[in-house]
């Protein structure tokens, strides 16, 4: 059975209408061509749309195993587990009063007005209109977080999305709204129950109102037969501080599109990513730092440590609108090439239409520095261990910027575990 939307009868009319329109949009829009600038060095045909199927309602054994494996952070304010877009577990007793953290379907029913205002309101800008339409049409699971003004959610909200079944597709959604001066951290995990092929087409929208702090972490550890897509956007209001981190470890082909809109004066957005592709994994990364207000800062650091015949594509653009004076915008992509057959493509870009702007972009690709290796070996550390320290350090250099010890340790451990598979 090919993919087909199965609309929930309890969803509000406005949502049903949008979902229906999205389905026809998905069917009408052509698959992006490799000649499309947003798809250079990549290929949308990597997603086997024809062979994908709606994910079945998982049987109870699968659910049990997935829920038991949904353990990463020791402390969390709320935890939700989805298997094949069905809610499998949810605990939210640690949340401060007034904070909303509910499954998507519940949010549609109970918070329809807020959803109507914020749900997928932004145009896709980095090439995946077709897949965003597919996501909207198929969407039935995910997490909606609304943090009222002035409230800090102390520990992270942690969400697991599992896919089970050959060629099953899931469409996880994340919507985070932090009202004025609110603070929240949300962690999404994307995983496969087995080593089967499958597809995750996720959308995450993060809205930071004035003075809010939002940290968002996406950990993609799907099966290496799977494909993973993650389309995220961040809106940073006046003096809001947004931080997003993408960990790309799984899937044979993954693509992330991350847009940061800096819409309020003094806003800040940090965009971070780490990947460690092995074998013939492909990691495709597209970013946009959109400065629409003055005195805002965006700082992007993406690092890829490549092995074997893996390939990465980084394409990043900074745009500074007229009037966005005193912008500080930085973009850095570093690729560590640990094999002669690995390939890192970097396409950095800048469009500046304002004055008094500090912008820089740079990308580097190369093997482990001989001088760093020499320094470690000169202290008695053997070659393989020295390389391990350097590569993990290369990743930790980004991970350390998250600013939350528990999350940093969790991500470090995931990277270390994948590194151990190198043997």
């Amino acid at each position, binding site marked *: 059975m090919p993919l087909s939307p199965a609309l929930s009868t309890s969803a509000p009319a406005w949502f049903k209408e949008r979902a229906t329109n999205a389905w026809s949009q998905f069917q009408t829009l052509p698959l992006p061509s490799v000649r499309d600038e947003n798809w250079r060095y990549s290929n949308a045909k990597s997603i086997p749309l024809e062979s994908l199927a709606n994910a079945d309602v998982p049987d109870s054994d699968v659910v049990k195993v997935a829920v038991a494996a949904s353990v990463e952070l020791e402390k969390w304010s709320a935890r939700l587990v989805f298997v094949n877009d069905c809610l499998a577990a949810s605990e939210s007793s640690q949340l401060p009063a007034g904070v909303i953290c509910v499954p998507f379907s519940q949010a549609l029913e109970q918070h329809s007005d807020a959803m109507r205002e914020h749900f997928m309101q932004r145009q896709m800008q980095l090439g995946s209109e077709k897949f965003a339409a597919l996501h909207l049409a198929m969407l039935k699971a995910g997490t909606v977080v609304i943090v009222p003004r002035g409230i800090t959610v102390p520990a992270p909200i942690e969400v697991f999305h599992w896919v089970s079944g050959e060629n099953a597709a899931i469409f996880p959604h994340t919507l985070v709204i932090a009202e004025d001066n609110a603070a929240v951290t949300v962690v999404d995990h994307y995983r496969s129950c087995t080593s089967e092929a499958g597809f995750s087409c996720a959308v995450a929208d993060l809205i930071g109102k004035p003075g809010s702090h939002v940290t968002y972490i996406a950990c993609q550890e799907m099966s290496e037969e799977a494909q993973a897509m993650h389309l995220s956007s961040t809106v940073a209001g006046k003096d809001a501080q947004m931080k997003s981190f993408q960990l790309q470890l799984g899937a044979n082909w993954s693509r992330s599109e991350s847009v940061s809109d800096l819409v309020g004066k003094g806003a800040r957005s940090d965009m971070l990513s780490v990947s460690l592709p092995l074998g013939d994994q492909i990691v495709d990364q597209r970013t946009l730092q959109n400065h629409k207000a003055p005195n805002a800062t965006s700082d992007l650091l993406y690092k890829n440590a490549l092995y074997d015949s893996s390939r990465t594509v980084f394409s990043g653009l900074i745009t500074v609108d007229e009037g966005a004076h005193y912008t500080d915008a930085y973009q850095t992509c570093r690729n560590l090439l640990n094999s002669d057959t690995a390939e890192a493509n970097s396409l950095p870009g800048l469009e500046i239409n304002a004055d008094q702007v500090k912008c820089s972009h740079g990308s580097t690709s190369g093997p482990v520095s001989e001088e760093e290796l*020499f320094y470690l070996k000169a202290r008695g550390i053997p070659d393989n261990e020295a390389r391990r320290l350097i590569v993990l350090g290369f990743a930790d250099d980004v991970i350390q910027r998250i600013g939350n010890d528990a999350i940093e340790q969790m991500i470090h451990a995931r990277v270390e575990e994948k590194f151990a598979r190198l043997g």
Partner: protein
Amino acid sequence: MSLKIENLQARIGEREILKGLTIEIKPGEVHAIMGPNGSGKSTLSKVLCGHEDYEVTGGSATLDGEDLLSLSIDQRSRAGLFLAFQYPHEIPGVTNANFLRAALKARKPDGEDVDAIAFYRQMYARMDQLEMDRSFTGRNVNEGFSGGEKKRNEILQLMMLEPKYAILDETDSGLDIDALKIVSRGVNAMRSAERGFLVITHYQRLLNYIQPDIVHVLMDGRIVKTGDRSLALKLEEKGYDWVKDEALPAAA
């Protein structure tokens, strides 16, 4: 028992830098090598540690009888050789504590780990001696360190690894007088009858604080003069030209 370098010759690319260098450092001794820029001082330290840019074309180097030149870089360190770098490298993302633990773990039998409590206790004690703030344990190796902090960090590593023979490559460069005193105090604390030092320096100033037993002058890839501490003072006063006049015609 000694670090024994005999008639050592080495080149980088086509350029001969060491042209037959001989020196023997016994445990308990502190030797200083002085020499003008380009004489081969830093090359000597890197060749002894096994830097791959240099090719040894002749001579020998042994550590307590073991052939150093046949060992890999990390084996030389574990055999008991230490180099305090002139320009210590930054290692992004690797904390000082993890780095030192990895270095100590490499000295343990396979699978055996470093005792964490004893490790931190010793590291803190050594850091106190070097007047290093505890925060340096969690900072990435040399990243964002000032020149003086990097040099202290080198001496911290020396103190933690307790080598048999330590080479200090221009450890005084980039240090103000206060930092120089602290670093020297750290080195002097490590002087013992079981440990030999080779202090490479451009200036005699360092030797006021780390007093050598023997002073060598390196010129054009060879030791051209050897004496006691007074030789260093004479070099400071008169420069290197007189040694050159005295030594090179004879060596030619």
